[in-house]
């Protein structure tokens, strides 16, 4: 009895605290329905499926011609198909990797003996010459044209699409961790976009000038990255000092830092992209070591987990919520307000720096245009996730949900062919809608 009670209570907490999750799932469901389409499988799995289908449809000693187009993927498909067919005892008359003309030639040649089937790559299967096989040779009139079975599945839910979404949003989501903490503490940090640019440029420049350029080794890459991140953390410390010592509102301070950092990034890069960085540097931005999940996504999840623990289980987390809830009352309860704000803005800066390093890794170079307008998307993720801009409220994982909502909507618009000009309009409307929804929900509950 008690067990089901606590289960019900946890469920209620999940729904009310992470209500935006339902919104995300609803959008996902909608997109799944709307992008439901016929899928033509390709690749090795498709080859295997086709081989099994051929075995089923033909006699034991059947003779099969494999047809595919040019290109690495088609060649791999054909190769796998051939080996699968042969290993199950069928005879492969030949493998075509080319144009319809090549297929016609091969068919004519193969028609000397009975050809039971033509096993095609799905793209090749639609070639017009297959529509009237008798024209090529009367012996081919009974030849079956086989291709991998198509099936129905939403384009949205394809593994590569989902991973793509996660990868697209990884940098924004990571920077949004720091922004969430700043917002909960009652502030805002407009400088993150510029810090991303600054960090990307600095890391690239350090690698080029001191790390050995394109032949830099891993230690050099690590040191350069650490230096770039530390620099951005220092910018955060600077912001916090202005805020606490001179009582300048965070909006103004970080606006100033945004302009200074952006200008500095352009100065350091001399207006160009610095791309003398080694191939190995792309490991972070492009690699996918863990079960094919992009490294940046793995890093994102790890950081979110760590941030969640800090905010919910440590004194620092409590202090951040307290300062955002009522800074004066917190001070009178002995909270080291100044120190807490220093940490919060430093972390936000550092995570922006990390974002810049990831982008530099992704694009194999540093440019001052990276991170442009990112502060808006980051803040949008935080707000859509449900954190209050007046401070004291919000959850780390809600921001992740907010980031995904934005990414999913953007992805959905791409999949359904909405023009990019309209996309910004839709995105803006979504952000407003999310905030209003949150206000209504609070009014109902509170």
């Amino acid at each position, binding site marked *: 009895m008690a067990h089901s009670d606590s289960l019900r209570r946890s469920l209620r907490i999940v729904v009310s605290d992470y209500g935006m999750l339902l919104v995300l799932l609803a959008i996902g469901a909608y997109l799944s329905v709307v992008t439901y389409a016929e899928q033509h499988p390709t690749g090795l799995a498709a080859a295997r499926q086709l081989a099994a289908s051929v075995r089923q449809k033909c006699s034991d000693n059947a003779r099969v011609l494999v047809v595919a187009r040019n290109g690495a993927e088609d060649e791999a498909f054909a190769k796998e198909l051939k080996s699968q067919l042969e290993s199950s005892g069928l005879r492969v008359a030949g493998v075509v990797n080319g144009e319809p003309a090549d297929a016609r030639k091969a068919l004519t040649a193969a028609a000397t003996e009975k050809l039971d089937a033509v096993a095609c790559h799905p793209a090749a299967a639609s070639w017009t010459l297959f529509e009237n096989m008798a024209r090529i040779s009367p012996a081919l009139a009974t030849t079956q044209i086989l291709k991998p079975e198509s099936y129905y599945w939403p384009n949205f839910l394809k593994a590569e699409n989902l991973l793509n979404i996660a990868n697209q949003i990884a940098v924004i989501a990571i920077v949004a961790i720091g922004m969430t903490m700043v917002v909960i503490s009652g502030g805002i940090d407009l400088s993150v976009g510029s810090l991303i640019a600054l960090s990307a440029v600095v890391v690239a420049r350090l690698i080029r000038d001191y790390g050995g350029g394109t032949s830099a080794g891993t230690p050099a890459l690590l040191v350069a990255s650490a230096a770039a991140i530390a620099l951005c953390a220092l910018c955060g410390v600077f912001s916090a000092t202005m805020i606490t010592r001179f009582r300048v509102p965070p909006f103004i301070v970080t606006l100033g830092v945004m302009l200074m950092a952006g200008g500095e990034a352009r100065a350091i890069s001399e207006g160009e992209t610095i791309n003398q960085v080694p191939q190995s540097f792309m490991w972070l931005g492009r690699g996918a070591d863990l079960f094919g999940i992009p490294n940046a996504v793995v890093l994102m999840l790890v950081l979110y987990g760590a941030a969640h623990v800090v905010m919910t289980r440590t004194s620092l987390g409590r202090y951040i*919520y307290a300062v955002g809830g009522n800074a004066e009352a917190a001070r009178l*309860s002995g909270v080291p307000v100044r120190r807490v704000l220093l940490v919060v803005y430093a972390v936000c800066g550092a995570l922006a720096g990390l974002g810049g390093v990831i982008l530099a890794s992704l694009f194999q170079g540093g440019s001052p245009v990276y991170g442009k307008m990112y502060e808006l998307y980051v803040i949008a993720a935080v707000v859509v996730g449900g954190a209050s801009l007046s401070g004291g409220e919000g959850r780390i994982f809600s921001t992740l949900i907010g980031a995904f909502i934005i990414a999913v909507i953007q992805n959905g618009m791409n999949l359904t062919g909405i023009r990019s000009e309209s996309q910004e309009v839709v995105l803006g409307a979504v952000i407003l809608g999310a905030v209003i929804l949150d206000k209504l929900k609070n009014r109902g509950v509170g």
Partner: protein
Amino acid sequence: MTHLLEMRGIQKSFPGVHALRGIDLDLHAGEVLALLGENGAGKSTLLKSLGGAHIPDAGTIRIDGRNVRLSSPLEAQRAGIAVIYQEYNLIPALSSCENIFLGRERTRFGFLRRGERQLALELFRRLGADINPDTPCGRLSVAEQQLVEIAKAMSLDARVLVMDEPTAALSPPEVDKLLAIVRDLKSQGIGVIYVSHRLEEIQRIADRVMVMRDGQSVASSHIAAAGRQQIIEWMVGRKLENEFPSRKPSFGEPRLAVRHLCRADKVRDVSFEIRRGEILGMTGLVGAGRTEVARLIFGADRRDSGEIAVDGRPRDIREPRDAIRAGICLLTEDRKHQGLILGQSILHNYGLPNLKRFSTCGFVGHREERRTFGDYMTKLGIKAPSASQLAKNLSGGNQQKVVLAKWLEANCDVILFDEPTRGIDVGAKFEIYQLMHALAAQGKAILMISSELPEVLGMADRILVMRQGHVSGEILDVKSTSQEAIMEMAVH
């Protein structure tokens, strides 16, 4: 006398709370009706129903015998009812003149007409108030703001004036002035509903008394027939032996020694000591510097000069953190905005200064925190459905107990109470007094700042009277002193 206002059978429920269970209320023209009741009795809901902020679920309201439906504050205004809430409804950035006419600006085709300023000056003259109509309300004193609220009511030609705890933040001379104005309004035929916990004032100004308890009216009588003791009993529903608990104090070595504290012209060369087990009362007029002294001792403000020593050891206190480490704590005057973080749970509020005690390597031990808070909830009698309840949902008395719990856990030896029972009903007040006595008995040193003279006389072992930033007098024999004697030292 005709019935100016008649309320019959007023019912109002909120989710989970049946706030008003059939209230009847009569108000005659030219009469002051004192409305009393503990926190939670339903007074606030009743006032809001009169002011059009709540619509009753059932019951009738009649003005001059006519049924009225007060479905919005505007309707209430039109019906001739003006409510002055405890937290004034003035916009600090606007001038007093603009506030008086807010929402009813005199305009022609949308442009403001002159004449408002003249009217405002006339109103202030009638009230005997020396206020510049152009000064922003944020810069006026609390007493002046109240006069602006009254002027606003008068400009509405209100027939019924409701005042909620009007003297809570006023000094004794200002209270006298207010009561004189109320008498004047009476003579003009206006009916006044006067809500207050200050029984003395009620005796001075009211014609009749009505006591509420648990959403109902439990007693209604002429003031002559209701003595202080009787009123308290009606409010609490039981016989109260004494308003203040009795105790046998025993004192030890000085725990807190303060020497030559100075801060600009707010605190001028203040020195005193508090011994173990002693309750030192500190009183004086509003602005005399009492809260400022407490804030200096606690490090909430930076002192210009002076020394603070705890248990003989001098401590350099610059921030509240230093004070807490030295064993000093402050229960602020404004508990809602300085003592608590209203949007957080009472558990988290309790834990905030004590996290180090519950954590290892920065990780907070939730179970330990919850357990110890549970103990305090029982020990202090904190009434809340659970520890996760938000601080803003508790009554004033319970909020104060949460604040006390958080400092008790911090094991403070010197406890500074600033207006500990403000806005707290009689029953809860007694509990707080008992807690203070228990703390003193444990050997703690207690400073009690209070504007309520009966409270100071009933609780303090010694009294310091502040005047304009310095100590104007010390009373060692509290039993034989009087409110007049204290007032003598406080007034300037």
